[in-house]
Each structure stands twice: as C-alpha cells, then as structure tokens.
C-alpha cells in the first residue's frame, strides 16, 4: 500500500517536472550586448515646467528633462529598445505582469517594452488625477481617468505595436508601450548599454528602435553560450 502510494507520488512529481521543462522553449545561455550611440547634434533635453501641477513640481528638486531624445556622456542614447525581430522561437507571454507608473507627473519608465498578451498594470502614485491615453492604431485606442488612490488599471495589448502614450491633463507627459512578439529585448540605459540574455543558439535579426528616428537592424549568429556584440548608431538632428 505504502509502496503504491510512493510510486504514484514519484510519477506525479516526474510528470510535473516534465511539464515544466516542455511548457516553454528551453532558455538559452547566449547573449547579445552593445552600446547605442548617436552621431550629429541631438536636440537639447529641455526642462519641463510643472508649475501648473504643484503636487508634482515639488517632487523634483531639479527640473525634469524631456526624454524623447535622451542623451548621455560619450554620445550615449538612452531609451532605445533592442529586440529580436526575426529568428526567435514562438513562446507564450510571460506570466509576470509589467508595471507602468505615473509618478511626479512622469511616466516611469519612459519606454516600457512587453510581450503581446502580457499583463500590464498601470499605477497612479501621484496626488493628482491622470488620464492614460494610449494612441494605439493597430490595437484599439482607449482613454481612462485614474484619480489619486484608484486601483491599478489591469490591461494587455494583443498585437505587436509601438504605442505612444499621453496624458491630456499634463501635456508634457509622454511615453511608449512597446508591444513585441519576442520576450528577448532590452532597453538602453543612461550610458547607452544594453544586453539581451537567455538566447538559444541560432541566427537572429536584432533591431534597435528609437521613438524619433528610423529603426536599424543587424544579423547576429549565436552558437552556444557566447556573447556577441551589436552596436547601433543613430543619426540625430538638432530639431
């Protein structure tokens, strides 16, 4: 009796483990990293006047700067989404939700990548009402009010798209939802660096997207657990 019970348990555990293994394609150990830079003269990052919203203005000791072309030392370019646009295996959306915050009358992060059908939670951490207005074209556009203390808006986007987001009440608030087919993506940080991890061996097309300038692509071959470098340079204009 006890042996039977033990056997049944063992089988159950083994089957459970097997299902875990095969639920998603195996995660690889290859990676692609690099640096995003610009050439030319970028537009100035301008200070934002938040005096019309005192509860937000007082959260910032120095003025918040515009983020549409966010530059750093060494010609670094921030907020560029680098993702696998071809060669990736089909996989389901991660079960973990991505989080978007409205804080100090800013969208945090400015650019939020996610996978199509992945849960998206939008929070209002401010003492003022915001209206979240994603100007979707491929998905459907909506516009919702979120007063202070409201529960997060729980939503998702079904189709891949670069969606511009704005708050009509605070016209300086502007961000992007980047809805991708692939879970393999990264966003360039302040020093322009990025790293896409967990890539299985294969031939990939890597694309870098910036909200204001045309996207760029490179082909990269990964064999085994190696790191490949892919750098991108965006030509910028001062206006």
């Amino acid at each position, binding site marked *: 009796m006890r042996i039977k019970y033990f056997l049944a348990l063992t089988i159950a555990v083994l089957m459970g483990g097997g299902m875990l293994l095969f639920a998603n394609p195996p995660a690889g150990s290859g990676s692609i990293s690099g640096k995003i830079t610009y050439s030319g003269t970028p537009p100035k990052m301008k200070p934002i006047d938040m005096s*019309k919203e*005192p*509860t937000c203005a007082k959260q910032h000791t120095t003025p918040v700067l515009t983020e549409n072309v966010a530059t750093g030392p060494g010609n670094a370019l921030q907020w560029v989404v680098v993702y696998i646009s071809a060669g990736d295996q089909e996989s389901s959306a991660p079960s973990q939700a991505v989080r978007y915050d409205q804080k100090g009358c800013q969208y945090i992060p400015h650019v939020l990548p996610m996978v199509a059908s992945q849960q998206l939670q939008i929070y209002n951490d401010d003492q*003022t*009402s915001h*209206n*979240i*207005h994603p*100007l979707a*074209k491929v998905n*459907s*556009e*909506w*516009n*919702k*009010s*979120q*007063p202070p203390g*409201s529960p997060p*808006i729980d939503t998702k986007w079904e189709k891949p798209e670069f969606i511009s987001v704005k708050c*009509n*009440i*605070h*016209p300086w608030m502007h961000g992007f939802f980047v809805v991708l087919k692939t879970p393999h993506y990264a966003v360039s940080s302040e020093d322009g660096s990025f790293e896409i991890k967990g890539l299985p061996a294969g031939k990939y097309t890597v694309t870098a997207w910036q909200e204001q300038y045309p996207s760029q692509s490179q082909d990269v071959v990964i064999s085994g657990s190696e790191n490949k470098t892919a750098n991108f340079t965006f030509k910028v204009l001062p206006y």
Partner: protein
Amino acid sequence: MTLKNFAVTFVLGSMALVTVGATSMRAQSHVNSPDPALGAPSVASEESHVNGLTGHAGEGKVLYRRYCIGCHGPDGNGEGMNAQWIDPKPRDFTEGTFKCRSTPTGTLPTDDDLYNAITRGFVTTNMPAWRPLTPQQRADLVAFVKTWSPRWAKEKSGTPLAIPPETPITIDSILRGRQTFQRLECWKCHGPQGHGDGPSASTLTDDKGNPIRPYDFSSGSRFMCGSTNQDLYRIFMTGLDGSPMPSFADVVKPDEAWDLVHFLRTLQPLKTQEASLWQTYKAAHGADIKPIGPDAAAGAQ
C-alpha cells in the same frame, strides 16, 4: 495574315482590352473590391440593424457619394474637398474611432450609436442633423460607414453601458456631485466654473494633433452626444474616444455619476430643476460654499 484580317483582329483585341480594363476598374470600386489592399476592405455584404431596419452598404455608398463625400472624402479618411475649411475636422472613418458611443472606451460603437450620430448631427461642428434622410437611408449609411475600417470585420461592438434609473434631483445630490467634480479634477480642463477654461484647456489636442476645446457649460448649448441627463451620464462614463475626454466608468459608481450629472446641470444657464435648487441654496448658504479648483484641492474632500 492580310491587312483586313489584321485590322479586324486589332479592333476586336482593343475592345477586349477596354472591357477588361473597365471590369478591373469596377472591381477596384470600394464596396465590391475583393482585395483589402485597395483602400478600405470590401464588405459588400455589410449590414446595419437599427430599430428593426436593415441597412445595406451598397445603398449607403450611393448616399455617401451624394451627401457625405464633400467633407469625409472619397477615401473615408475625413479629407474631403471641404475639410481644409472645417474645424473641428470631419471624422476619419478608417480609424474606427468614434466619440459618441454607448460602449466602453476602446470598443466599437453600436449601429444605434452611429445612427443616432447621423440623425442628431454634432452641434458646434459642420456636421448637420440628417433628419431629411429617411430612417432607411440613414441605416444604409451606417452600414456603409462600417466598411471603411477593418476593425468592423474583426471586432464586435462593445456592450452598451447599463444606465440605472436616475436618482432624485436634490440639493444633497448636487452638493455630492460638486465634490466629485472637484475630486475627479474635471475643472483641470472644463474650468472651476465649467467655462471650459481650466489650466490644461489651452493645451488640448485630438488624436491627430489638432487643437480641441473642452465643453463650455456656460454656453448652455446641447452636448455633442445628446442633450438629456442620460446622454450626459453616458458621455463621461464612456469617454469621447479620439479626444482628450477620458472614460470615468472605472472610477465613478452609478450613484456618484448621477450626482455629478445633477451638479453639471447647475453650471448651465438653463431653467432646470437642478439650477433652481442650486440658486436657492446659494442664496441661503453662499458664504459656506468652498471654491472649486486648485485652491480647494485640499478642502473639498
């Protein structure tokens, strides 16, 4: 081949070519087009169902070319010949985004919503009320308008908002509505007195980046999406998609929504029950009334 034979063949051949050309031109016309790449997707069989009438896109197309094309354009994108002289701009039907809906934000309107829009027209815009057209003609136009955006082929209309019976119009309801107006910061765009002059008003743009004005309650004009208390309830609960006006359906309970409706009526220079209740209250308690707007941000709650 003799010269005569050649001439006959040439003439016949040309005729055949012309016929083929004409056929393919007809195939490219909007409603019959089998190819989605040729402008709007073809939904020759598109129908609308309004008040027991069935509208047909084919009939609607003829009417569209007669009555609508001047502003909404041959491609349905709102770029007709007159569009450059018009503000606000004519609706771009290819986006499938509509202001006046009974359905939640982000969803397609119902056939009734589109029918009502054509019937009612839009005050303060160039869109007239199309009452001279018969109900059948208006239903046909609804069916045709739905052929411009591919969304109609893939999505269903949203579920219309359920509006519970109106709560009694009392001064308490008006005062609660006033607090909701403050809490939801309606005044940021519509202004503390509802004059459409809030701090964000001058910066507002629609989806296409064109400047757009918030409703000025002191004008007393009809609302864009109707004139009854029910219409007013529906406007702020569903939002006006494509404009800066958001949906409040997730953050306002039905009772609160009716309170807000009752308060909003007091902002209009109209002889309504709400306005007379408010005038009486103001005459007796004028000194106790807290201001609305940035100065009251802490006080009114």
